[in-house]
């Protein structure tokens, strides 16, 4: 934020360095149920971000004194792979990832019916395999698909997206250069059905009007991403149905074979 560099982030016609318009998202691709071991999972590509999310739980919380007798603990761990950024990152949590893990946990907690699973923990793991600005929004969007894939009861999905300001103009979904040399970055996450805001951070310099303009733009974009999330889950469940049919056929076949043996 706030660096003055001779990099032109927007041309005369309002096009950004990657050709996007001010309110255009980078390309997004979501796939649910991509891992075998986890209870639920999702893979997401968003511009240059490549992200995996996995869910385990509800499972008994350890150690005991961390158990809450009234509800499940929601614990999200955001982690960057060493090779996910240009300058190799030392493995393990740093202060940035500790903070992000905290606010993502808080956002996800809101949509999960935690009171249905007292004394348990629901663990959400977000692995940033390739990073290119906006990883917390991408990770949160993937994580809520993974939660749904795990069959965790939720009031809705969470959708996340950032807006910001470059070259004096409010724009959607910053990419790396825009984040580094722009004037503001505002990650946001909402519950799409109710439009409630569950995550909001801000860095930089915005007037009240710019802030409100960006909020509306980002909330609209979130609704589009919501469509992609639901599409990914629909595909995943139709695959499950296919597989179940297949499985039934196989079992029938197996039973026959066993009779033969």
């Amino acid at each position, binding site marked *: 934020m706030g660096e003055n560099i001779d990099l032109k982030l927007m041309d005369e016609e309002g096009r950004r360095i990657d050709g996007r318009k001010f309110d255009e998202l980078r390309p997004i691709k979501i796939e649910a149920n991509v891992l075998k071991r986890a209870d639920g999972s999702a893979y997401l590509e968003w511009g240059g971000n490549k992200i995996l999310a996995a869910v385990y739980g509800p499972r008994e919380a350890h150690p005991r004194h961390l158990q809450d007798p009234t509800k499940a603990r929601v614990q999200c761990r955001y982690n960057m792979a060493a090779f996910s950024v240009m300058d190799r990152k030392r493995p393990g949590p740093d*202060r940035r990832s500790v903070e992000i893990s905290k606010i993502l946990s808080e956002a996800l907690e*809101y949509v999960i019916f935690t009171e249905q699973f007292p004394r348990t923990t629901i663990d959400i793991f977000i692995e940033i395999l390739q990073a290119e600005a906006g990883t917390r929004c991408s990770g949160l969007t993937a994580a809520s698909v993974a939660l749904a894939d795990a069959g965790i009861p939720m009031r809705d999905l969470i959708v996340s997206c950032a807006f910001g300001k470059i070259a004096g103009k409010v724009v959607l979904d910053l990419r790396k250069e825009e984040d580094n040399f722009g004037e503001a970055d505002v990650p946001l996450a909402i519950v799409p059905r109710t439009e409630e805001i569950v995550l909001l951070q801000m*860095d930089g*310099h915005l*007037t009240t009007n710019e802030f409100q303009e960006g909020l509306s733009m980002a909330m609209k974009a979130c609704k589009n991403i919501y469509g992609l999330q639901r599409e990914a889950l629909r595909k995943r469940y139709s695959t499950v149905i296919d597989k179940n049919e297949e499985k039934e056929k196989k079992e029938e076949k197996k039973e026959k074979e066993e009779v033969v043996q």
Partner: protein
Amino acid sequence: MSDEVISEINRNFIYQLTEKGKRIDNRAPNEYRPIRVEKSVVETAEGSARVYLGNTVVLVGVKIGLGEPFPDTPQKGVLTTNAELVPMASPTFESGPPREGSIELARVVDRGIRESGTLDLEKLCLEEGEKVWVVFIDIHVLDYDGNLFDASALGALAALTNTTVPASRFELGEDFKLPIMHYPIACTTIKVENSLLVDPSLEEEKVACARLTVTTDENGDIRAMQKGLGGSFTLEQIKNIVTSSQELAKVNRKYVLD
């Protein structure tokens, strides 16, 4: 009576009060507790301030050292913020390496100062890419009765305005005051049921479902925000909080400037 029963009673009591627009300590929903800022309280620090926000007490010290600039900003001094929630301040704080609570606190205060351009970091460069002044802001919480974000942000700004760069001690010219360009003030609002309360006390924080800290500068522009806790805000609530934070910041800024 068990702790849980007491806290359940407390919760209900606070809920009932907020419905009537009242608070346990008789404040209005958008009223701060008494604020007192004392500067130059630690002689070993290059700048310092003690902030009393009701019963919450925070001591902030600024130390200045020499170091190398970051590779991507070779012509700028370095700013680093650290918070210690020492177990003296609360029975719930523990010894040991910083936990997520103190990390979030330090990072929110840091962003409030950094993103607002509070310091003219280019004036802290001695030799491009080689040698710069390093500004260490250390937040030491002494007594915890809620709203550490605002108390710490106030303390950090007050300590910075109180800081002299000890250039002569390093034989690098004459001492000079830290170059301050902006005066960002953080205002924290919590949501209890559907009411919004500014400057929460500890009892209020315990029953809050969501929290929003808005940092604004002397022009009323927004410089940093942080939403916390496992609840939500409506768009309308966010807008209201931004407006009230801008107004309250104007008042609270005076405690630092005096």
